[in-house]
């Protein structure tokens, strides 16, 4: 779907060449036995890196995360084909709590802190599958990462600002002592300065806590600045993948995602381009 002046990426060998801590292999996901949300997606998240998953609304990014966390069934979704594996073992039929115990966790879209619980209670819920001693130890780490949470630990989470809630949501996920942390649109609805803070933390998670991060974003600029490898998803398919420098150089990515103007385009080519643009941004 993407025309580019560079060699077309899909002419590369399929992504199964990349091995990962978490791997989606030829995944097809259908909702309600009727709506195909993911067609045939293979994604690998190697240990210790940040992998970006970019795409517009409805591209299927969150669906992949739901499959990863084993909660597709709550929305009548089903993995029809393909497999998901984590550290070499197949995990696509495990219950959500077992996945958390194995070290997979996600910060859901829209943060979803438990509004009536205090910050401390929210963190405790992140540590639900862990022992009391592990909770205490991990809580110290989270407070070290987010001093603001420590200051406000006895306050009701629902009254915090959006940025603080995002930090709490990340802290709560860290309480599960994950190996792989997925973030679903961490910059959604936040002010640019706050987004800077959040992204500083994400970099810290990789560099200091040695976590593997799967970063789902619409905000391609931010994600490409930080990730080591990225996939672009469009209507349930991976249309482009590669290291960020390669994606940033792609003309369509530049225009559709990074907001640079494609000057000098003319005539029929421009019309076709316009149609693609509409598809992308719809």
């Amino acid at each position, binding site marked *: 779907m993407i025309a580019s002046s560079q060699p077309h990426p899909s002419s590369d060998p399929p992504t199964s060449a990349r091995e990962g801590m978490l791997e989606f292999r030829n995944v097809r996901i259908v909702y309600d036995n009727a709506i195909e949300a993911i067609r045939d997606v293979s994604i690998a998240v190697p240990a210790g890196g940040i992998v970006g998953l970019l795409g517009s609304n409805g591209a299927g990014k969150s669906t992949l995360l739901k499959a990863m*966390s084993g*909660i597709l069934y*709550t929305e009548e979704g089903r993995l029809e084909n393909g497999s998901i594996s984590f550290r070499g073992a197949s995990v696509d039929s495990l*219950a*959500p*709590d077992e*996945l*958390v*115990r194995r070290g997979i*966790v*996600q910060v*859901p879209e829209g943060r*979803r802190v*438990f*509004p*009536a*619980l205090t910050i401390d*209670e929210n963190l*405790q*819920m*992140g540590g*639900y*599958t862990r022992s009391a001693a592990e909770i205490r130890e991990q809580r110290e780490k989270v407070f070290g990462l987010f001093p603001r949470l420590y200051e406000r630990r006895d306050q*009701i989470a*629902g*009254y915090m600002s*959006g940025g603080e809630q995002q930090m709490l949501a990340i802290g*709560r*996920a860290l309480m*599960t002592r994950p190996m792989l942390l997925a973030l679903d649109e961490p910059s959604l*609805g936040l002010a640019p300065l706050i987004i800077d803070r959040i992204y500083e933390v994400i970099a810290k998670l990789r560099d200091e806590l040695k976590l593997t991060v799967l970063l789902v974003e619409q905000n391609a600029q931010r994600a490409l600045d930080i990730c080591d490898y990225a996939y672009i998803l469009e209507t349930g398919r991976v249309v482009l993948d590669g290291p960020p420098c390669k994606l940033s150089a792609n003309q369509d990515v530049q225009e559709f995602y990074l907001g640079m103007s494609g000057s000098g385009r003319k005539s029929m080519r421009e019309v076709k381009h316009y149609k693609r643009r509409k598809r992308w941004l719809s």
Partner: protein
Amino acid sequence: MQYLIQLLISGLAVGAIYGLIAMAFAVIYKSTGLVNFAQGEMTMIVAYVAWTISTTISGNVFVVAFGAIVAAVLLGLVIERVVMRPMLGEPVFSTVMVTIGLAVILRSSINFIWDAYPHALDLGVGRHVVRIGSIGVRTGQIAVITTLLLLIAGIWAFFRYSKFGIAMRAVAADDRTALLMGISAPRVHGFAWAASSAIAGIAGVFFAMSYDLSPAMFQLGLKAFPATILGGLDAVLGSGLGGLLIGVTENLAGGYVSSGMKEVAGFLMIIIVLMIRPFGIFGERDIERV
């Protein structure tokens, strides 16, 4: 003055029974977001089981109490597993309709399993009268009020400090996110139904001991539901206190105005309170923040 105190005491005693059942409503609502319209029927079934134990196995009050609580827990677990869990994720309206259907089935099962006549649950305790000055109080009345207060304190501490208690609040607020944190919502729901059934069962046994056992006992649920609304559906402690408030109001209205007012007074109070605080006296206003 003595008349007033006597009215207050019997109001508190019957209010404590409403309060216990109201708390049972609130426990389920707080962790599953559902109103269980079969609560009164579950109360009645447990009371009948207690009566059966007392007439066939042993009339010892501890044996009966233990047997009744075990039966109540089992009843709660079975209902959750067989009837409610398949409804997980379905619209709230359908699920509540299921509890109404369940109520009718449980209600009629009394006639199938037992009979339609009133029985007395006499365990040889609770009917002695203790005199404090010139005021007579039955030991059963003291026991039920004490039980309510102890349970209020216990449940408050449970929801506030225990990991499982906090998890119940988390599941009630957002069960999908709770799943993502590794909290098993079905287990939490099962626990809530068992606990709720046990609390309601205790109320049923106290009621049967002080008054009588009859197939009309399910109406206790209808009396207790307003107490839950009054206290706040999501406020377990408030529901307990709401029960006391309704019991006392009923008795005072019945004693001073007319016995016809007894039925009306509680509901009148609910209407007034809800107009001022639509989420109940102790209920939490939804925190809205985007």
